[in-house]
């Protein structure tokens, strides 16, 4: 892992100076607060907009705090992941295409150090982002609806973080393996089409990384079959490690793709 600290510092400087630590968490915070707020004020919003027929009555469902967190996670799953992945999918491939990688690759660095330094920074941005998203969602839910049980909340948060690490590892692996355009397509297909497949025919199996975000919520509801949960978590962690391994290898193999 030669040069890890130096490369980590470089990656942090980039993320910091390009405001990634600010604007991505901000996006997540906005996503997180939108569901509790819109659901709570739905009746007022509808009244204010007007055009409701005379005598119209709507039965609003009685929402539990955990329902709102689930809705927020649903937002993170689409727009949130899209933002994170789009931001980071070029992190290796663009460096190669522009030639910025050349001046680093000619030095005696280890590619696993370079890969890991990028992964650590991405994970940190991801962590801060979902922390902001969860915090915003929970804050407005607690103010408007009711409280959570802290233990299962933390468990749910880290379950979601594990899933996020998997997503980021896939993204970075694709970036190491392909050019930016192909990497983007492959990463998006794997993560989003995976979600769609999981939603349509996911009832036929119970263990998969794509199930983890929902399992985190089920932990809070207390309806989780724990063996499914643990197996999914283990599979996710293993897949993450495998992605890191493959990414490191392809990054090294593709070093000659850098523009000289």
């Amino acid at each position, binding site marked *: 892992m030669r040069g890890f600290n130096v490369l980590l510092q470089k990656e942090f*400087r980039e993320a910091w*100076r390009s405001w990634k630590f600010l604007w991505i968490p901000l996006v997540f915070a906005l996503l997180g607060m939108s569901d509790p707020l819109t659901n709570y004020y739905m009746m007022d919003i509808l009244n204010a907009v007007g055009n409701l027929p005379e005598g119209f009555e709507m039965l609003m469902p009685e929402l539990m705090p955990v329902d709102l967190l689930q809705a927020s996670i649903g937002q993170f799953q689409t727009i949130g992941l899209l933002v994170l992945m789009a931001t980071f999918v070029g992190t290796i491939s663009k460096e190669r295409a522009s*030639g910025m990688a*050349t001046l680093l690759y*000619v*030095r*005696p660095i280890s590619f696993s150090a370079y890969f890991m330094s990028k992964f650590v920074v991405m994970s940190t941005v991801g962590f801060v982002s979902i922390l902001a998203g969860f915090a915003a969602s929970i804050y407005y839910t607690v103010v408007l609806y009711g409280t959570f049980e802290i233990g299962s909340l933390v468990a749910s948060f880290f379950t979601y973080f594990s899933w996020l690490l998997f997503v980021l590892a896939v993204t970075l692996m694709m970036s190491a393996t392909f050019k930016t355009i192909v990497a983007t397509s492959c990463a998006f297909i794997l993560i989003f089409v995976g979600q769609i497949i999981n939603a349509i025919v996911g009832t036929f199996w119970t263990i998969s990384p794509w199930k983890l975000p929902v399992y985190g919520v089920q932990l809070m509801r207390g309806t989780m079959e724990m063996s499914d949960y643990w197996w999914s978590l283990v599979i996710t962690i293993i897949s993450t490690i495998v992605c890191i391994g493959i990414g490191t290898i392809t990054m090294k193999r593709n070093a*000659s793709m850098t523009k000289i």
Partner: protein
Amino acid sequence: MTTLLQVTGLTKQFADKVVVDGIDFTLAENTSTALIGPNGAGKTTTLSMLTGLLKPTSGSVKVLNGDLRSNIGFLPQFPQFHPWLSALEFTEMAAKLNGVPAKKAKLAAQKTLEFVGLGNDANKKIATFSGGMKQRLGISQAIVHKPKLLLLDEPVSALDPVGRREVLDLLKGLQQETTILYSTHILNDAEEMTDQLLFLRNGELVEQGTLREVRQRFDEPNYVVEFNTEEEAQHFTNKSELLGNVKGRFVYIEIINEKPSMQELLHHLSNAPYKIRKVERQTASLEEIFMKVARKI
């Protein structure tokens, strides 16, 4: 002189195109070598293989006493930097990645930046740098760790005359303690700082040797005599037993095996009733040699 680098049968093939075709050469320690050739001759590909970025199809690059990657500094033709770093941060990072201890890296980076003339811009973001400043920064990142071998791809081609002069002087300052291999198609530069010339053409090494050796092989020396008028030039050529070509007011006389000598020529001229403006012995410039080598079949 001790050999630093030995290249044997180096070949690179992309799909069905052979870009570098089995070249052999050695670099002695603390010498400067110019890699010359027309565009597309394979200069950059050769340098890329020496850096280790590109795997040779066949052949080998041997560095005596040590590992290649930790002993080289490389400047690409168009160096690209991370724009959000400052010059000092980038140079310091380069030093650390090459194993300079963290405590010394910053000082080394500062000194190197001063050496390349970026002392006052060390803390500015690279995004604000001009082309010339980037080239200097490129040199600083290549030399900050004091590599044994410095590989430079067209180090001065993109610079204006002033910048070129300054960068050449910088490189001359490094010649004493570094082995330099640089590619160029600007021959005046090669003429100025070169112990060895390598001529590449279509991926093949067609000429090699010191500037003197190459010059001797390709030189066709001649005398030029400039007369006052064309008639006089013509008249002199017709009357004299020396074989000369008349071009306007100039008469060119080929020298074959040091014949005729300057004395003989002057003797012929001294008796003639002409006004003579100039007598000169000409040797081929590197550019003429380059043209000959480039066209040689």
